[in-house]
């Protein structure tokens, strides 16, 4: 009986340690980047965050409309910062020093054009 208890206990401990280990290894591949974009409004926020949600490896994203900074958490095994900036460009917005894809920018609603300034 005692032996069985010990066995179960050690099994549980083993599982816990494995899962902790798994979590830490998982965490270590998560990276966060901040991208300065040319987004100007809440509509831009929606379309950017939506585009990010469909990107492989992206775990979460959030745009701060006022500072125009897009914060993206991604799995570095599946994607990288360049891909994320490319997606921002393909959605019609500048990403840091990289300019927006011209066609995508033209497609943006008037409200999202950067001449409008943050509003």
């Amino acid at each position, binding site marked *: 009986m005692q032996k069985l208890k010990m066995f179960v206990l050690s099994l549980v401990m083993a599982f816990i340690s494995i899962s902790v280990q798994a979590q830490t290894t998982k965490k270590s591949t998560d990276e966060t980047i901040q991208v300065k974009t040319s987004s100007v409004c809440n*509509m831009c926020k929606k379309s950017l965050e939506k585009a990010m*949600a*469909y990107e*492989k490896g992206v775990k979460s994203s959030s745009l701060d409309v*006022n500072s125009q900074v897009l914060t993206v958490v991604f799995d570095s095994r599946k994607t990288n910062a360049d891909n994320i900036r490319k997606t921002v460009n393909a959605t019609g917005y500048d990403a840091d020093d990289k300019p927006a894809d011209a066609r995508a920018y*033209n497609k943006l*609603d*008037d409200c999202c054009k950067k001449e*409008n300034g943050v*509003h």
Partner: protein
Amino acid sequence: MPSNFISPILAKAFTVLVFALIALPATAQQLHGRIADQTDPTQPLVGASVVWKGTAKGTATDANGQFILETSDVQTSEVIVSYLGYKPDTLNVSGKTEVSILLSRSTTIKEAVVEGQKERYSSLTPTNSQIITTRDLEKSACCNLAESFETNASVEVTTTDAVSGAKQIQMLGLDGAYTLLTTDNIPSLRGLATPYRLNYLSGTYIESIDIIKGMGSVLNGYESISGQVNVKLKDPEKTERLYFNLYGNSLAKFDANLNVSAQVSPKWSTVLMLHGNHLGNRVDRNNDGFMDVALGTQYNVFNKWKYTHNAIVSEFGINALTEERLGGQTNYEKDQPAGQNYGTESDTDRLFAYNKTSYTFPGKPYQSIGLISSATHHKFNSLYGLRRYDGEQNSASGRLIFQSIIGHTGHTYKVGLSYNLDDYTETFNGQNFSRTEHVPGAFAEYIFNNAENLTVVAGARVDFHNLYGNIFTPRLNVKYDLTANSIFRVAAGKGYRVANPLSENTGAMVSSRSFIFQEDLDPEEAWNVGGSFTHYFELGGRPGAFITDYYYTTFNNQVVADMYSNRNAIEFYNLVGRSYSNSFQAELQYEVLKGFDVKTAYKYFDVKATYNGQLMQKPMIPEHRFFVNLGFATPFDKWRADLTTQFFGLMPLASMDEADHNHPNNLIGKRNSDRFYTVNAQVTRAFKRWDVYVGGENLLNFRQPDPIMGASDPFGSDFDGSMVWGPITGRVIYAGLRYRID
């Protein structure tokens, strides 16, 4: 050392400067300003918003267009000024205490089609308008215009007869022929194209659909009576580079669609849209010996070009389609000896081309001139049992519109000239029906806008019809915003159209009824008066809208298609007495939970006409209808699910029963439909480029019992397949996929 000497002075100067900088904002703690219209600075913009850039701190202008902003606790020196219908402006106001800001009008009040962003009921247009967006279109089965209205409460889609499967739209309880159908604001699919017109536009060609209830603008002609449906086709400049759609359903109907677009040069862009559908499988689930759905094959090509250069924008489009349909008894084949089996056939070829060119005057964004021209060739050969019905329509039209302002943009006007040519040739059972219409016309529309809460659109047109004389069409639309969230609209006006009794009643050809023209038919003329109230609200942080409207249409003349009076005939004559429609609708939309939208509507129709001296409810229009649409979407629309249920009340039907006709004191043969529900549902899973969807129509599997009267003897006197009031096919399951490259 000189440096030792200078530094105390520098230090002193620096201290003074710092003090000055601190003191400056202290003396100028407020920014005063006035905002006005650029073209007329005497016109203040009331309620314009002024916000410090990058903050939420701001204010709105008062009744004189003036505002005061606190500057004390703000880091930025820029303000953003914005006003609905005007271009927003960013200004540096550092050091200023007073500013005067002039805003210029946006050339168009563009209502963006952005997924999920858009209110389905527009708060901007002077007419009672609804928008079906691409996202809404994706909620229903693929792939034609008929299915596009499935999740919309204002437009009903009905089946004209049980054999050919032709579908029609209804608005305000009135036949689809009274609704003006336009593509990119060009009247199209009119006249002889009416019976199957909803099949001629693939859902994948459509960017969005605007539905205007009641009277609209006079610019598009005199024909609309119950409303207008404008289909916005994909814009070559903005649509997906590649869009591909495949669809199949449990009846073995297949649809394939492909759109390709390209920016050919900085000035030219193009989109090529292809659509094909095919149903080759004979289905007879109700075992009446007739196919439940007509077989058919259609090939449809639409090519659109857009040219943009400075002030000139021009669009060219060409559409060609060919369609074959075959319906009737399950063992009916083409070219069988007449009278062996009952069948319907129709072969259609259609060609449509148009051009829209506009020029905006330099430095005057409010002034433009536009030329719209189109040409249509439509030809069909059809067979309904023993009756042959062939037709050809050749049409051409041109419109010149000039738009400008009177003084300032609060008063705008449009004037123009139009010319329409319609050449119709129809042969029905060896009888010829031909006519050629030449209609030159002139129109003017004046728009008053007080930039605050009132818009008035008053228009009139005069047309000189070669067959029916002069036609005067006045129309009025008023929009009044009680508050920003409560909007009243009134619409009144006259509509006019020349009926095509044969093509509008192809359903009756699928019966033993003979077609009797009692007299020469006059054009139809009707007044329509109505209004709506829209209220947008927010409850628990989620948006909702309540919309109610009422429209009354009364006919001065109507071509009455009487199936009540004579059990063996459909009789056509000019209205003697009254014919009217009362239509009431109340609709509530609310996002109950994040991502979970509910749309409910109740509709009441009282549609009556005088048949042979007796005022009767029109056949096949239910008095009461309910509509509920539940829409669910996970964040970013990765999963979407939709459920639409509709309830149909009793509908009166024309009867062929001897007993009904011979009843004492009752010359009218009438019976009723059953009450019934339909349920449609769809689930979509979206990936970056792919969408996969599965859905079902008529999930309750409700079927109209005996949709074809006298089905056992289709060449006998009791045969009638025109009284279709419910689904014939029962449950249909479908699945499909979409692929796109933006």
